[in-house]
């Protein structure tokens, strides 16, 4: 593009006034305080908001978990009624999956993908803001069912029909589930499109696909899984919603419908969802272990291709959730076989991490502890997974606590521990101060011990025959001892989370008295460590030219004639100073927030009064059109378009043009049929 100093002269000769035909506001300027956060389109701020909100819902879901454990601590528990218990375990699952771990992974994806590929921002900054606000409004909407919906959903996170039908779940809980997850789904879908385009299109010169860090790769695979999984759950949720709100006959066996339809649709989404949860953590671990082994990741291409293989194979195993549903012995057999072989690429990853540690110099920072803990804990989850890939064995194990143990070892032991390690690793990059290592280690060990005490005994309980989703058990079943241990473990996990928050508080308080961490406190390997901490708003002063994988490491180190590693530049010399001026950044916008506010209003409207839908729809429509009609830049803002960022500039502007179109098409497709 050509850079103009004139105030945006139009080729058509029209006056600037037409740029705001609806009297639209000028684009807000990057100010201070809450307005800045509400209108930001900066991928880093959006990432931080994802993270903060995810941690909030971690606490919510954690409180629900503690209630479950209190109820089950002893036989014939009386803490919760059966009704409340069913709501609590449903919302625990929904919260932890959709409102904690997915957005926490989204926080990493948003913050780190552009930095790791050397980009100024994501491809569509405003769509990025839209994703966050839509997700948040969906999350809040979902939880308001406690207050206005007559309780939370009580159908389990898997919400099998016909138990989820109006006849068997008459409160509004399931309606909130169906609509809330649809809203959150829009967010995931928009975000997936955005990040895929970012990964494919916004890479710095020289950043070929196979130079991308493993984390970015795993996040990219995750986005593809989301891209294809979200529409399937959207279909399922639409059908459920039509059944409940408009008397359709998709899942009502009385009308001849087949309840297994829901199970297929749900698990076609639900199994890739497992990899959506776990792959980002795999990526995080693949960044941390090499850094603290002082070695490159072992078998980069195998790491990447095993991730892709998991992504593909993840689509062919969904019915292993349905081995006892009565889908027929041949189907069960086929899915049993495919499930066993998905263990292979997963094993490749584990062995490559071990090979990375092999011969390395392991420095056990908190991040490294979490990463190594993830490898060990995920291995347990993976191996128990193999035991129920055997369809015959699964007939004994499914829907027992053995499965609860298994997927917590995968999701908590793999996903949560991994992402926790990521928090410690990237914290200085994001906030400009380090988390206290001593407290961090206390956090790690309490969490690891609490985790194993909670979920380890569940293997035993499951094999002893304790069913899932029961709110009570008899003393004669012999479940009391291990349940008590699990409950104690759960409170130790809670303690570890408290330690984490205290650590954040303390580290922040102490930060001014400690030396700043600098751009690269860990002697790390990828591009995000090349810029100052916290990352400057414009990311890179100038877009780096990438010449190898682990680009940043290779800017610091080279090899002498004996193939020994020698330092060729200090961090100080190699970093960008973050002092570039006049870098043209996408202007903030309030419209994503407005669109996001409209969606839950449509949701309430569908449940309580259809007129509200008109209001919500109007808000969404207004938001989308105003969004598209608002100028790309604030014309009043002082622009000094540096020639050097010519390319990025063009992307942003160009991108935002049809961004609205995308929003229109996406949001429209999702909610249009209401």
């Amino acid at each position, binding site marked *: *593009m*050509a*850079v*103009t100093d004139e105030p*945006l002269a*139009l*080729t*058509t000769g*029209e006056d600037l006034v*037409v*740029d705001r*035909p609806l009297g639209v506001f000028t684009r807000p300027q990057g100010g201070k305080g809450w307005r800045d956060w509400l209108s930001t389109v900066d991928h880093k701020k959006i990432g931080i908001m994802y993270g903060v909100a995810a941690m909030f819902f971690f606490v919510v879901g954690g409180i629900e978990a503690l209630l479950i454990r209190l109820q089950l601590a002893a036989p014939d528990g009386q803490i919760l009624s059966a009704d409340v218990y069913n709501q609590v375990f449903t919302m625990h699952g929904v919260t932890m999956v959709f409102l904690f771990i997915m957005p926490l992974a989204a926080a990493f994806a948003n913050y780190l993908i552009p930095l790791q590929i050397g980009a100024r921002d994501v491809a*569509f900054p405003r769509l990025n803001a839209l994703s966050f606000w839509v997700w948040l409004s969906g999350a809040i909407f979902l939880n308001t069912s406690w207050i206005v919906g007559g309780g939370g959903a009580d159908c389990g996170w898997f919400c099998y029909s016909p138990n989820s039908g109006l006849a068997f779940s008459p409160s509004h809980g399931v309606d909130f589930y169906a609509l809330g997850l649809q809203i959150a789904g829009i967010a995931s879908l928009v975000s997936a499109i955005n990040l895929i*385009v970012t990964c*494919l*299109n*916004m*890479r710095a010169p020289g950043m070929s696909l196979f130079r991308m860090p493993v984390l970015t790769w795993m996040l990219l695979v995750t986005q593809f899984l989301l*891209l294809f999984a979200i*529409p*399937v759950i*959207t*279909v*399922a949720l639409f*059908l459920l919603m*039509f059944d409940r709100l*408009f*008397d*359709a*006959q*998709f899942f009502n066996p009385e*009308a*001849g*419908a*087949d309840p297994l*339809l829901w199970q297929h649709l749900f698990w076609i989404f639900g199994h890739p969802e497992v990899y959506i949860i776990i792959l980002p953590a795999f990526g995080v671990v693949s960044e941390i272990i090499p850094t603290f082994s002082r070695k490159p990741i072992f078998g980069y291409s195998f790491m990447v291709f095993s991730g892709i293989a998991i992504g593909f194979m993840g689509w062919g195993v969904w019915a292993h959730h349905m081995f006892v549903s009565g889908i027929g012995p041949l189907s069960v057999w086929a899915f049993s076989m495919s499930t066993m072989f998905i263990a292979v690429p997963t094993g490749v990853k584990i062995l490559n991490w071990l090979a990375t540690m092999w011969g390395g110099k392991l420095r056990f920072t908190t991040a490294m502890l979490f990463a190594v803990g993830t490898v060990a804990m995920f291995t347990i989850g993976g191996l128990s997974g193999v035991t129920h890939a055997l369809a015959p064995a699964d007939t004994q194990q499914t829907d027992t606590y053995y499965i609860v143990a298994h997927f917590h070892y995968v999701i908590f032991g793999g996903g949560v521990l991994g992402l926790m390690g990521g928090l410690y690793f990237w914290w200085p990059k994001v906030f400009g101060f380090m988390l206290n290592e001593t407290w961090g280690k206390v956090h790690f060990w309490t969490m690891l011990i609490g985790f194993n005490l909670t979920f380890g005994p569940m293997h035993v309980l499951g094999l002893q025959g304790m069913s899932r989703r029961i709110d009570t058990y008899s003393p004669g079943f012999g479940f009391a001892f291990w349940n008590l241990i699990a409950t104690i473990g759960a409170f130790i996990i809670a303690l570890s989370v408290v330690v984490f928050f205290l650590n954040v508080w303390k580290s922040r308080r102490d930060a001014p008295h400690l030396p700043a961490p600098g751009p690269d406190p860990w002697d790390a390997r990828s591009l995000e460590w090349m810029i100052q901490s916290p990352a400057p708003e414009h990311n890179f002063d100038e877009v780096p030219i990438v010449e190898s994988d682990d680009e940043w490491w290779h800017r610091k180190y080279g090899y002498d004639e004996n193939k020994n590693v020698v330092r060729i530049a200090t961090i100080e010399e190699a970093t960008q100073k973050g002092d570039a001026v006049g870098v043209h950044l996408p202007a903030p916008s309030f419209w994503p927030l407005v669109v996001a506010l409209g969606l839950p209003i449509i949701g309430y409207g569908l449940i309580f009064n259809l007129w509200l839908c008109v209001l919500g729809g109007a808000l969404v429509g207004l938001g*989308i*059109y105003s*969004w*598209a*009609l608002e*100028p*790309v830049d604030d014309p009043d803002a002082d622009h000094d*378009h540096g020639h050097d960022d010519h*390319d990025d500039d*063009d992307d942003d*502007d*160009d*991108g935002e*043009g*049809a961004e*609205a*179109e*995308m929003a*229109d*098409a996406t949001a*429209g*497709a999702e909610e*249009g*049929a209401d």
Partner: protein
Amino acid sequence: MATATVDAAVDSHDEGGHDDHGTTTGISNTKLAMWVFLGSECLLFGGLISTYLLYKTNRGPGPENTVIPTDVFDIPFTSVSSFVLLMSSLTMVLALSALTRGDNPATRAWLLTTAMLGGVFIGGQVYEFTSFIREGVGFTHNPASSAFYTLTGFHGVHVSLGIVMLMSLYVASKQGKLQPKHTETVEIVGLYWHFVDVVWIFIFTVIYLIPVD
């Protein structure tokens, strides 16, 4: 749509229109995003079509409300409206080519024609729905009817959104803001439009033409 074009017009320093030298793949972000989005849409319609195929002969336990859509299909009528929709893809191409030539009146004419053909299709669908309901196929009657209305309804909503986009482009062109440099915007709307058409060909074949035995 209008939004996009106004945007682009405003963005006057974007002289090259949609030059793509800025992206790694050489495809512009917006176009790539539309392709990716359409990939996702395939699964959406895949799920809905599968649901319909599962239920297409499911009359429920009866004896009430057992008329299913296949009983009342009017194939000649739907063939005509399908043909209309197909033709709209042609006019969409003509609109794009007119814009590339810089022929704004022709662009507008073809855009309007495309939108109107889409409108005729939607009108046909509304007529079809009402006549089916008159013949006793209610949305709530049995799994087959619920699946039929949901699938075709979803498609109808997609076509309607396409019409909104086309009309927005038309208005933008009317205001002189749709210039040859904006061909990619039209192209992207066209991608969406062609996709919706292709999906209909699939739906028409699978639902209407393959006989129920």
